[in-house]
Structures are given as C-alpha cells and as structure tokens.
C-alpha cells in the first residue's frame, strides 16, 4: 500500500470515527429528551439544592447526601424514571424532610450542588406548601382537624389558622390553614400528615405555587404604616342623614343593638 493511500485510509477512518461518535452522541439528547424541568411537581430536591439547571450541572449523582440522610428521606432516582437518573429527591407524602439542625445532606455534598451557604435549615426552600383542595380540607368543611398546622416545624409562622365566619352554620368559625411563603421551607411534614386519603395540602415547586403581584401595586395599609399617616390626606367625612351624631362609619341605626355578625340567617332560638 502506498503512503498516499495509507494516509487517505487513515483520514477516511478518522472521518468515520467522528461520524460514528457524533451519531452515538446524537442519541443522548433523544434519550434524555424531556420537557424543560420536567421533574414531576411532587419530586422535591434536598435542602439547599441549586436551581434545577445549575443543579443538573453540579450534581455528580454520587448519592452522598442520600447516605447521610438520617431519616431515609432522600433517594436516588433510578434510570429511566420520571426524575433525572441518579439525582437525589424526595416525595413529601412518603417521607418528608425532618429539617435536621445540622443539615447533614448539605454537608455531605462534595460539589456544592447543595449549596454549603445554607447553614440555617429555616432558610431552605425545597418547595412551598399549598392548600390545594378547599373542597376536601376538613378545616374548610368546618371541622377542627388542624393536623397540618400542628405538625408544621415552623408552626404559627409557616402555617397559621385564619379564623373567619362560617356562613353555613352562621355561628361557628372556619379555621383555615394558611401557608406563608416567608417561612415555609417545603419540608412536606404537612403533606405527609394530612389525614385524608389524598392530601389536601401539597408541597409544590415554589415557581409553580407562587403568584406574583404586579410591580406597581402598593398595599395602602403598608404604605400608610411606613409613612406614619395616610399618603393621600385624611378622607373627607360626608354627613350621613340621620346619623349625624354618630362616629364616622358607624352605620348602626339602633345604637344599643349588638353589631351584626356577617350574614343574618334569621335563626331564632
């Protein structure tokens, strides 16, 4: 074989190798093709996890966080499952995060995919609890279940019970579990503890759960408190005929009657 034909053969082999390698690699995105951020909403990342695109660049799928989780909350995703193969996640309804004070999973992470700057577990934002079903939540039905509220590790901050009038009975309160995103870590204790066969409160990714006000919205009461007084001056008090001797805004006709309580059902003892 002449040197020229040998060189040509080498060159052609190189081309074939490159083409073969390219063909093999082009299979990868096909196999990995999933809609962006297609992890199921119920699969939660460990505390301190970077946002999903960064997390998938940083996590080497070593499972050290899984090994150091004392409650077996974290698991590694199997290949071909709904979560990116080999990455850690947990499902709140199965085993929620117990919010360890020393955050061993973050300490175990060698790459920083779980951000080592997270030193107070209360700053973790694994997700956001949402009382997603008002139709089955026992407290919304007027019962005193309160379980999600009671088990919340950040009780009275992350979940409060908001008391409102129960118009159905007209003389009871509804104590509505209300989640506050300022404090909810997304640990999932509420979802795990919900007594219903299917939880009415669920932890969801923050981006999925959270609404947003337009930038130009201001809350009058906050602005007023910050300013010390009303920003638009005192309201003009127009006289109301027949109520001239009453405090402004007091519309009761019979001064001695008790104040009305919501909708009057006309109930009599």
């Amino acid at each position, binding site marked *: 074989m002449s040197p020229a034909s040998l060189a040509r053969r080498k060159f052609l*082999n*190189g081309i*074939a*190798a*490159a083409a*073969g*390698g*390219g063909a*093999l*690699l082009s*299979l*990868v*995105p096909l*196999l*990995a093709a999933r809609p962006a951020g297609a992890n199921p909403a119920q699969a939660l990342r460990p505390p301190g996890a970077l946002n999903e*695109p*960064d997390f*998938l*660049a*940083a*996590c*080497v*799928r*070593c*499972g*050290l966080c*899984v*090994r*150091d989780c004392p409650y077996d909350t974290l698991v*590694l*995703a*199997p*290949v*071909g*499952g709904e979560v*990116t*193969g*080999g990455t850690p996640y947990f499902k709140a309804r199965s085993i929620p995060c117990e919010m360890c004070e020393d955050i061993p999973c973050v300490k*175990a*992470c*060698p*790459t*920083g995919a779980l951000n*080592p700057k997270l030193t107070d577990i209360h700053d973790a934002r694994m997700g956001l609890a949402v009382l997603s079903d008002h139709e089955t939540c026992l407290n919304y039905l007027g019962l005193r279940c309160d379980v999600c509220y009671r088990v919340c590790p950040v009780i009275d901050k992350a979940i409060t019970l908001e008391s409102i009038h129960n118009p159905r009975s007209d003389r009871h309160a509804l104590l509505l579990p209300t989640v506050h995103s300022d404090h909810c870590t997304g640990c999932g204790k509420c979802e795990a503890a919900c007594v219903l066969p299917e939880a009415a409160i669920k932890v969801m990714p923050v981006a999925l759960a959270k609404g947003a006000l337009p930038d130009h919205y201001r809350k009058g009461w906050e602005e007023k408190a910050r300013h010390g007084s009303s920003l638009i001056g005192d309201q003009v008090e127009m006289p109301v005929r027949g109520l001239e001797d009453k405090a402004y805004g007091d519309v009761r006709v019979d001064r001695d009657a008790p104040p009305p309580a919501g909708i009057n059902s006309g109930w009599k003892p």
Partner: protein
Amino acid sequence: MSATRNPLHPGRDAVRDKGWLAAHRYLILRRVSQLGILLLFMTGPWFGLWIAKGNLASSLTLDILPLTDPYLFVQSLAAGFMPASAALIGAAIVIAFYALFGGRLYCAWVCPVNVVTDAAAWLRRRLGLKSGRAPDGNTRYWVLAGSLLLAAFTGTLMWEVVNPVSILQRSLIFGLSGSLAVVLAIFAYDLLVASRGWCGHLCPMGAFYGLLGQKSLVRITADQRGKCDDCMDCFAVCPEPQVIRPALKKAGQDSPLILDADCTNCGRCIDVCNKHVFHFTHRFDQRSDS
C-alpha cells in the same frame, strides 16, 4: 513445545504448563478488586459498617478521604459549574493516582462494565463469532470530546444520563433498577456487533483515563520476547490487541515496554502466556532478552 494455535481456547497451554490458578492469576485478582471496591460501599448499607460512602462518581472513605471521578469533574466544568473544594481535592487525588499507576487501570481493575464486556468477549471467542464490524478505535476520543461539548451546550451533565459506567456502578451500589437494559445492550453490542466494541472503541470514560495515564509508571513489559512462539494467545485475550505488537515484535520501537495509553494493565497477557514473556514493571525498565 510448538505453539498450538487454538483461537477458541487461548491460554490452554498456560493452564497446562502453569496450572489453572497461575494461568488466571490477574483475572482473579481483577475480579476480586472490582468486587471488593463495590463491597467497600456495601458494608455500610448492609451491616452499618461504613467504609466508603457515595459511589464511584464521588465518595468519602472512612470519613476522611474524598475521591471524585475526574471525568465527571471535567463534565461539570464544561457545563459551566465550578465544583466545591471537596470535589476538587477528590478529583486531584484520583488524577494523581491514575497518572502514576496507569490511567486505564480504572477500566481493568475498578469499572464494573469491564466484567460485562469481558464476558461478551469470552463468549464471542468461544462461539467463534466474527459478525459485525468494530468502529475505529479513535471513535472514543470523538465521543469524549462530544460529551464535553454536549455538557457545554446544554449546561447539564448530559452524558451522565446515559453513561453506562455511571449507571451500572450506581445501580449496583444503591440497589436501583434500570441498569439491566444498559448492561444487555452493551453485552449484545460486544457479542454480536463489535469485538471489544464498547470498552475498546466507544467508551469516553476509558478514553479519558487513557489520556490521564499516558506517562504512567506501571507498565507491562515483553522482556522475554525472545521466547515468544507466536501462539497468538495474548492477542486473543487482550482487550486492546494493537498495544502488544510494538513491544513484542519491535514494531516501531526497540523497548520491550507496552507504552500505548490504551493498555489497561489487566495482566491477562501475563496469565495466558506459557512462555513467561510478559511481566509487570515500571516504565524505565528497559531490560530485554532480545
């Protein structure tokens, strides 16, 4: 004794002359090594005795020694993420080890996929299969480059979604499902399509470790090459047969050392040679009988 050429049963002469155990010495040692390394990760979950934690991608041994796979580390870098110091130290230790002792030592002595491809190669030899056609041996370098480009373009460790080495070792250590399809695919490919196809031609991880260990100290030498009787047994069992000829037959080099970075230091050539031609040595040992 003249050479008995029997491509279906390489090493038969060695078994007869040296005994079965000596003729399988390095094969057994390698299997012990591969299994033992996995077992170091298993004593924790099985018996609560934690020796190594994590998996081959990144681990912590005896709560002190961090090790990180440098190929994964480089993929992370390509994806635009600078891993934290624990991973950096771990990768540096691994790089230093393989640069010193032979890059593809990983392939022959650590990687669990090696067991699968060795089994496929053994069966292909036994059945006398000649089907298929292997891609060019340099394809692996293109796959390596491509895997890093893929990471750079997607910003994620895209190759790790399909990397059979990662998938198999992780599934074994963490008891995950989903690796069987990968194992069967590689076994079938190596058995029916390409002899030593995966490890010897495609795997970018092997290519990466090969590049790491180009100047490594531990080498196999054909120092007794004068005794070679051309039985071809070493070529039949070698996972990278092209590395033997320069040392054994003085093709393009005078040194008896196998210096090709593709050599996995598996020692199988030492096992199957009944003339004791090959030995482990270091890269400065130029002794030779011819």
